[in-house]
């Protein structure tokens, strides 16, 4: 049997200011880590939610993103009737020729403007994105300078609200609709008529990509293989999901910086916990001696003080979680290094992230508590009893 936990809990309560200060130090470290993880998780979720499982994205050979891809109408015509491509109710192949570019929009946070993705597409392109639902206004009409913006764009850029006008290409484009595609990256895009947009940018023949829907899941790989190996087409093909998931790396610099800062803070918190526990061991030396005289072993003393450190750090971890919880669901944006435009997403604090934060706190407590606890356990009875 071990020393009762109530002994540790009451001691923590007894010196509540020291406990609170140490726990707060750990809490801040955990909060920084959780904020970064929530950000990266939100970004990952946005990219993972993007793309249809049956869609294959086709770009010029060697292109890593739609922005740098140069895809011609001829290539589009050549791939349109490939085997394995699904057809809609009218019997039309489900293939969408698209043009992607970036435009600069001023926001409240960045008056000098932020790059956002403009996607020119045909009605087939819209039809293939069933997850993009209109939440306000209507879809753009072909041949008109009209755009439909993702809901993140509408909320973050004052000019992009319904009824607003955006100046790009050769004139003003009216915002006629706002769409919502759940957590998808589409919420950070602006949709316009392909022909009007490509004409405005003098890119009628130099478009970006084609989106192709395979008939079924089994055909997807075969279709990708067929497109990749077609020497005449000279294109790169990958699943749309794979394309978006690979963009999660956009969060890598933030993740690296955040984890780096967390580690630096963790070292500080670890020493703070160690200091607190050394003080506790020193102040309670006589109690340690008494417990040994009563028959508690060195291992029990070690476990007791280690447990106290773990409880302290867990308390810090819980405070850290509480501090960071209000971030959950808050929308933020980050530069996407693949598309050179901003992607908006929500901080997402998942149970896994909370578990990681608490585990991190417990590790801090274990590291900070191990030496003081071992110091307590090593004390000779008489030495401990004589300490004041």
């Amino acid at each position: 049997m071990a020393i009762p936990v109530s002994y540790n809990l009451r001691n923590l309560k007894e010196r509540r200011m020291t406990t609170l200060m140490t726990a707060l130090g750990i809490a801040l470290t955990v909060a920084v880590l959780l904020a970064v993880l929530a950000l990266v998780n939100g970004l990952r979720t946005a990219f993972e939610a993007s793309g249809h499982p049956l869609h294959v994205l086709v770009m010029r050979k060697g292109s890593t993103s739609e922005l740098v891809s140069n895809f011609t109408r001829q290539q589009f015509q050549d791939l349109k009737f490939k085997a394995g491509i699904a057809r809609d109710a009218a019997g039309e192949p489900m293939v969408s020729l698209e043009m992607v570019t970036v435009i600069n929009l001023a926001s409240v946070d960045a008056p000098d403007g932020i790059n956002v993705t403009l996607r020119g597409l045909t009605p087939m392109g819209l039809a293939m994105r069933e997850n993009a639902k209109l939440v306000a206004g209507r879809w753009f009409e072909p041949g008109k300078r009209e755009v439909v913006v993702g809901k993140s764009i509408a909320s973050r850029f004052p000019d992009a609200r319904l009824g607003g006008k955006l100046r790009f290409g050769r004139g003003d484009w009216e915002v006629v609709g706002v769409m919502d595609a759940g957590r998808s990256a589409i919420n950070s895009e602006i949709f316009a008529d392909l022909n009007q947009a490509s004409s405005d940018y003098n890119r009628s023949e130099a478009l970006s990509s084609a989106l192709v829907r395979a008939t079924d899941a089994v055909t997807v790989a075969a279709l990708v293989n067929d497109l990749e190996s077609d020497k005449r087409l000279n294109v790169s093909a990958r699943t749309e999901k794979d394309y978006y998931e690979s963009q999660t790396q956009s969060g890598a610099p933030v993740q690296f910086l955040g984890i780096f800062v967390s580690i630096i803070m963790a070292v500080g918190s670890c020493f703070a916990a160690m200091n607190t526990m050394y003080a506790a061991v020193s102040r309670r030396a006589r109690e340690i001696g008494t417990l040994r005289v009563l028959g508690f072993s060195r291992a029990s003393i070690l476990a007791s003080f280690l447990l106290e450190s773990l409880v302290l750090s867990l308390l810090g971890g819980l405070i850290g979680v509480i501090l960071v919880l209000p971030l959950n669901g808050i929308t933020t944006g980050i530069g996407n290094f693949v598309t050179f435009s901003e992607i908006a997403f929500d901080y997402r604090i998942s149970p896994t992230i909370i578990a990681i934060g608490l585990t991190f706190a417990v590790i801090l407590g274990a590291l900070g508590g191990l030496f003081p606890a071992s110091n307590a356990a090593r004390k000779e009875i008489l030495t401990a009893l004589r300490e004041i």
Partner: protein
Amino acid sequence: MSEIVIQTRNLSKEFVRDEFHVVALKDVDIDIHKGEFVALMGPSGSGKSTLLHLIAAMDRPTGGEIRVLGEDLRSLSDRSIARWRNEHIGFVFQSFNLIPVLTALENVELPLKLTNLKKKERLKHAETALKLVGLGERLNHMPRQLSGGQEQRVAIARAIVTDPDLILADEPTGNLDAASAQEVLTLLSRLNKEFGKTIVMVTHDPHAARFATKVRYLEKGSLLPEGQAPADWVLPAAGGA
């Protein structure tokens, strides 16, 4: 003659302090029998507390033999000693040494945590021990809410709760006023007479020593022959209280 509970032969203890060897105990031979209440007396530095600590296995001798309750303490591991101490020894400190964040009841329950007793049984035993020392009304008091005498009585309850074979007390009245000291000594005497507990008590106080059935003196680390005290000491009448 009743069973020998404590037996030492040529028991010695040396400390090394700042390169100096200090002889705390020198060739001590003592036999303490079951049911005795022995007071160890002597001036400061005479080695009486050292002897008590060796009997309690809180320290290891540097020479000689020591058998307590038939156990050769030198042969036991650290872990075995801890368990042995819990099962057989009740220790009373001069400054009570109660755990300040635990109630009187929890303090007394503490040594029972190392037994196989269930929580309910542990609490029942602790309550009985506290009632025995006259603190049945103070079960849930924190140590800071008790007087010195009451704290020492809680400490005695903690020492007897495991029903040990041997009670060791190191200056149990050293921090108490006369009235409280009288209470504590009466209690120890009662434990000896009514419950047959073997008690070894270290004390400076001749009045306290009068509660013992036997008084042994130490001087400069040596145990004086039975009935002999240092020249300038007044021999109290043993067992007179």
